[in-house]
């Protein structure tokens, strides 16, 4: 039996037996949705529909329905793409890296974090598709044999690396998530009676792949999880590194920066954890998981946010320093323009939200407050969105030749698509919260004895 230091705070509150955990996890699936769920779902769904209409309009008429122009050829589309990809980072990181480091607190949150990853990456993957001028030819970015003699793709292009990185990341994340889900689906399957709820029984039988919990299977399960975690960890880092190379390998001042890969990865973790917090704080209320998502979990995440936020701030300052130190006037102007040019306000929002507000987590009370955390996590999300906006738009709008300098202003369609993906994300997440085991209960059960408050108290007695 595993032992854990007494001074560590419990990760599971209340008197929870294995069966209690089963009940708690299966409750949202078995029960009816509460009104919070319905309100959130309705809002999300409306946004989603708006987004779908906006996308249809774009595909129907052309990218001209966005606010782009000959100078700024990417703006909200790629901003959103990078933002969603960033959000999609915490999930796999929590599962993979924290698994490798044997961090037990991950177990309450990793399922949802992974779901967030998958839904986030799905949103992100929409943008490379719809930002194309001719999305119906998107399959051309895959190296598929063809009658063109065969005409292939260009492996020098960072966008092609993106294609491989995103599809690998997405599919591996799905597999990782699903491998973990199988035992939990089996649990749900076994809770449903064939007579009273045959559809659910069938559904979960199908989803659980016939899992029965044999010792050998568990042994393989653990090894596969570990190896997948080992594979996913460099994958997480590579994906955002590659996304950053879309910019870093270009020639545009403000893009052509060697620190982009680590800077982007840190930023991704930063925003990913913030989004996890946003979601979990909502979710613990909406599906009653107060016992499993404790202030301890939040605090751990806040510490990571504080750390990554500070690192991101360092990166910002490094960029400025390098611009000055390079002595290249184009580079210098690009950064001067960011801070003092027409888009100074976006730079200010970025700095404020990403560098200054996370520093509040030094304060114990804020770090250990659900409400403060919720607000700050939203701040971080906004800040990180603006970080990408700053990088993309302020670099492009004034590059080498002043004759081409221009500006960008979003159209209603741009806004619609962005909000639409947020809506879509929440639609998926809320559906997930009602149909999936939102906590990796099988894994969680392994730590009940070491980290459950009941057992801890018992030991103390």
């Amino acid at each position, binding site marked *: 039996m595993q032992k854990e230091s007494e001074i560590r705070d419990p990760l599971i509150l209340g008197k929870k037996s294995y069966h209690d955990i089963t009940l708690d996890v299966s409750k949202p699936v078995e029960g009816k949705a509460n009104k919070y769920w319905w309100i959130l779902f309705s809002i999300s769904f409306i946004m989603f529909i708006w987004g779908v209409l906006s996308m249809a309009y774009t595909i129907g008429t052309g990218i001209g329905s966005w606010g782009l122009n000959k100078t700024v050829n990417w703006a909200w589309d790629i901003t959103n793409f990078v933002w969603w990809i960033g959000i999609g980072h915490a999930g796999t990181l929590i599962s993979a890296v924290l698994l490798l480091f044997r961090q037990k607190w991950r177990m309450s949150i990793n399922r949802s974090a992974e779901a967030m990853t998958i839904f986030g990456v799905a949103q992100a993957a929409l943008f490379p598709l719809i930002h194309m001028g001719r999305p119906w030819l998107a399959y051309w970015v895959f190296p598929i*044999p*063809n*009658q*063109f*003699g*065969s*005409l292939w793709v260009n492996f020098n292009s960072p966008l092609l690396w993106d294609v491989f990185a995103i599809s690998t990341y997405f599919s591996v994340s799905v597999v990782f998530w699903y491998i973990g889900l199988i035992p939990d689906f089996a649990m749900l399957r076994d809770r449903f009676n064939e007579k009273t709820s045959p559809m659910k029984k069938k559904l979960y039988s199908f989803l659980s792949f016939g899992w029965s919990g044999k010792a050998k299977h568990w042994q393989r399960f653990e090894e596969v999880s570990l190896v997948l975690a080992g594979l996913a960890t460099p994958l997480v880092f590579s994906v955002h590194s590659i996304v950053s190379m879309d910019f870093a390998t270009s020639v545009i001042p403000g893009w052509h920066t060697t620190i982009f890969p680590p800077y982007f990865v840190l930023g991704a973790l930063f925003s990913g954890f913030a989004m996890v917090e946003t979601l979990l704080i909502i979710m613990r209320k909406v599906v009653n998981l107060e016992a499993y998502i404790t202030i301890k979990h939040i605090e751990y995440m806040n510490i990571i946010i504080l750390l990554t936020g500070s690192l991101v701030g360092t990166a910002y300052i490094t960029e400025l320093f390098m611009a000055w130190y390079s002595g290249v006037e184009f580079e210098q102007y690009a950064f001067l323009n960011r801070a003092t040019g027409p888009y100074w306000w976006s730079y200010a929002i970025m700095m404020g939200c990403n560098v200054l507000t996370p520093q509040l987590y030094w304060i114990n009370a804020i770090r250990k407050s659900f409400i403060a955390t919720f607000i700050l996590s939203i701040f971080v999300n906004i800040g990180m969105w603006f970080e990408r906006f700053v990088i993309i738009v302020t670099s492009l709008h004034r590059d080498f030749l002043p004759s081409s300098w221009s500006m960008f202003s979003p159209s209603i369609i741009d806004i619609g698509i962005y909000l639409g993906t947020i809506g879509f994300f929440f639609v998926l997440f809320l559906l997930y919260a009602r149909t999936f085991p939102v906590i990796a209960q099988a894994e969680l059960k392994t730590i009940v004895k070491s980290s459950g408050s009941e057992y801890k108290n018992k030991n103390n007695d």
Partner: protein
Amino acid sequence: MTLYKRFFLSQFVFVILFFLNINLAAQSEGEQIFKSNCAACHTIGGGKLIGPDAKEWLSSDRFVSTDDPLGTLVKYVQNPADFGVLEMPAQALTAGEIKQVLDYVDGYVPEVKEVVTSIEVAEEESTNPVIILLIVTLILFLLILVLVSVKNNLKESLSLPTETVFESFKNYVTINRNKIIIGFVLFISLMYLLYNLMMGVGVVEKYQPDQPIAFSHELHAGLNGVDCNYCHSSAKNSAHSGVPSANVCMNCHAVVKGGDDKAKNEIGKIWKSFGLDIETDDFDWNKLDTYQQTPIEWIRVHNLPDHAYFNHAQHVTVGGLECQQCHGNMQEKTVGQVATAEELNKIDYNIKDGIEFDHPTLTMGWCIDCHRQKEVDMEGNDYYTEMHKNIKEKHEGVENFTVDMIGGLECGKCHY
């Protein structure tokens, strides 16, 4: 056309073919001019075709007895109407060219060569491989049914429970632990079918639309040996090979009105485009302007997408390709048709040039196949001299350069 008729016809035209043999050796200029301008109507010593036998005609009194036989001939050819000959269209040939033709005709020795005496007549049953597959599947399925009923009979005799085909199948699948393998195989075959389906998109091989006039290339280019360039005259100079304008048809068909009603009907359509009736009207070259002209609307057979720029002159004149290398043996077909890659692979010229097509005709891969295999003849063209020298230095030891080595695979060569 019945087999017999075809055979008969082939014997009948044997004589003509005999004299109009097409050899691959280099042709003298006179020969070329004769073939592209005269051969459609005149034979050399082969008797009357549309017009008189050139040899006989040239030695007729008309020319021989004049003071300046050559001069008269030149005038005659350039404007036969002046001599009261309305059947023959005026030829835009220079005196020098006419002299060359004359020399050619004078020195013409019929070359006896193996002539295929019978044109291949058997219409090949073109069976789709998919149909064959379907038939095989059906047979196999029937076989399964038979075997199952045999098995059931045997079981019945042992009074064991019998099962239908589907039950058998189901049991087989459930009993057999290789469901996944079966699924995998199915998946692979599905993907293969999908792949084939996708690869077939936009493939237009064998496209042969009905044309407003039942024009026969076989008759014109094959039997009568009219040079391709006579009608598709701009292929040598222009991007387009060109569909002949009706006045080109009338060069012959002002006189040749067809043997039977069917032919007359078809030729009559050309007349109609001048607003004339083949039965009642006369055709007068001098009155062209007064005719009520209505163009003939042909259906385009070779539809290259608009974003692909193809230039006939580059391939015919510069590249020295024969028409058959891309269009197949048109002289054996009736109305225009897109040749298949297999058919093209059997063309002698392609075999000689070492060209083998892997991709269907008129796809980009098809173009590329040739660009990768066809060697560029750089000798004797001053344009290439410098380039040839440089490229030989660049690829030491390589003597022959294919099109792709001089930029034939660059996108902008065809797409702009």
